């Protein structure tokens, strides 16, 4: 039998190890943030958000088009990914054991693991080649397709934890089945579903591969959905592999903006989750 002292000692060491692991887990993010701040903050100014890229050799310039482009691409992706993903998630939770539900569940997991470059090729094949040119729409669709399995699965998980007893209570009040699903089950899980959606958005916001041959990037101002559109990840890629120092600096600033967008979305997701346990909705 171990002495009390030995047990204290072992306990201390084990707790210390888990602390260490916890610190190591957050270290990469902290290092990246610190490095980005150091390298990117100097090039970051108001004009970075408002002005267009300048040709090599000219001072200043910004990524206004890429920032707007990324937001537009996220918008298109949400319009495609959220309705389909949430709808499929509701189906999976309502008809859990149907053979179709089981295959949809399996296929979404496969789709979730699909390399994003493959998604890009797929979008190119069906949305770029037949039309003959790159477009914001194709890029948004590729990102939207990536969102679908993520949103589907989180929606299903959030709905699954709504207890059966709530569904029964609503049915016993005389709610038709569809109204039970929407106004009780989905409504109870709404905060969770919103969180899942925001996490999916954060995940695709920084994707580069699916945009390479769909949205393609654009050095000029364009908000047209049928034209190639600039996007932060693409712009960062282009600038980072260029040989010009001022472009490198801009790439760092772009990376900082991109990570800030993702951070803001993640924080929003946290806030939404918290409100679920706070004040009542309605």
């Amino acid at each position, binding site marked *: 039998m171990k002495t009390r002292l030995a047990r204290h000692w072992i306990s201390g060491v084990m707790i210390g190890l888990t602390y260490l692991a916890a610190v190591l887990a957050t270290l990469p993010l902290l290092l990246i943030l610190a490095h980005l701040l150091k390298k990117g903050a100097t090039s970051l100014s108001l004009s970075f958000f408002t002005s267009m890229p300048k040709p090599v050799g000219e001072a200043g310039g910004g990524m206004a088009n890429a920032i707007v482009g990324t937001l537009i691409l996220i918008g298109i992706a949400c319009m495609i990914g959220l309705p389909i993903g949430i709808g499929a998630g509701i189906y999976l939770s309502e008809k859990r054991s149907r053979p179709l539900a089981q295959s949809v569940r399996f296929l979404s997991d496969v789709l979730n693991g699909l390399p994003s470059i493959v998604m890009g090729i797929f979008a190119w094949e069906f949305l770029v080649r037949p039309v003959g040119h790159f477009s914001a729409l194709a890029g948004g669709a590729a990102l939207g397709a990536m969102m679908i399995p993520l949103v589907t699965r989180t929606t299903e998980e959030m709905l699954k934890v709504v207890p059966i*007893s*709530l569904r029964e209570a*609503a049915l*016993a*009040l005389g709610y*038709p089945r569809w109204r039970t699903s929407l106004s009780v089950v989905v409504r109870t899980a709404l905060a969770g579903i919103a969180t899942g959606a925001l996490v999916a958005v954060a995940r695709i916001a920084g994707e580069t591969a699916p945009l390479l041959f769909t949205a393609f990037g654009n050095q000029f101002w364009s908000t047209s959905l049928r034209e190639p559109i600039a996007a932060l990840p693409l712009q960062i890629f282009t600038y980072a592999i260029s040989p010009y120092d001022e472009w490198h600096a801009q790439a760092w600033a772009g990376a900082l903006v991109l990570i800030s967008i993702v951070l803001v979305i993640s924080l929003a997701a946290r806030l939404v989750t918290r409100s679920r346990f706070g004040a*009542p909705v309605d």
Partner: protein
Amino acid sequence: MLQSIEVSSGARVIPRVVAPRAAEAREAVTPGKPCIITSHLWAFFGDAPAIKDISMVVPQQAVTAIIGPSGCGKSTLLRCINRMHETGPNTRVDGQVEILGSAIYGDETSPTAVRRHVGMVFQRPTPFPAMSVRTNVAAGLRADPKSRLAKQNVDEIVEEALHRAGLWEEVKDRLNESAMTLSGGQQQRLCIARTLATRPRVILLDEPTASLDPLSTQKVEELVYQLRETVTVVIVTHNMQQAARVSDRTAFLLAGELIELAPTNGLFTAPTDPRTEAYITGRFG
């Protein structure tokens, strides 16, 4: 044993209700007009019958308790009365149930319409977490937005329902708070208020106090006792003392069969079937 039922129930939980009522009221109950009539009712899970050929009459404006050991089909019988049984997978109902003269298993009867007139409260409180106290109580009114009730003054209905459930004083300043902030006993009375708001003719209670502490149990029991003045109540309970305290008539179920249905006092003091006697004297179950 019988004495111990009286004594322990009286002393432990509600001294004031049991004593005066047991003598006069119970004996006096002659079944009024029938409210619920089940005829040759069978309910199945897959191929296995959970209740077998139950024919019984539940009188209006009285409390009828259903007792019996676990798995005897008490809850299933209850859930056949508002067509909830068929919401489970692989379930089937045979036979007929009439409520106030209408056959609820008719070809043209919609289950949702039946459930709007027959309220149900479950073992565990089921307030809707995403709704406030007020919207919870009003939830049933919105089951059918076209109905007469949905057009009336919702606030008045909510207040009246909360009064009837004896919860108004406790929650009148918290109507906009989440229903989850209430205690378990308050949540259960909220569920009763939610059911009352739709003005049902019948209320089914499925072990409504099983998850409550003794004080909350007492409040719910007093409420059930008052409810019988306006609605017909059927209550499933595991607790024989509770059946003795709140009900006018008691049905004893065993392995899916209705063994005996009699005035509560009679059933507990002089059961006609030996199996009933064995159960209430604690020889099994």
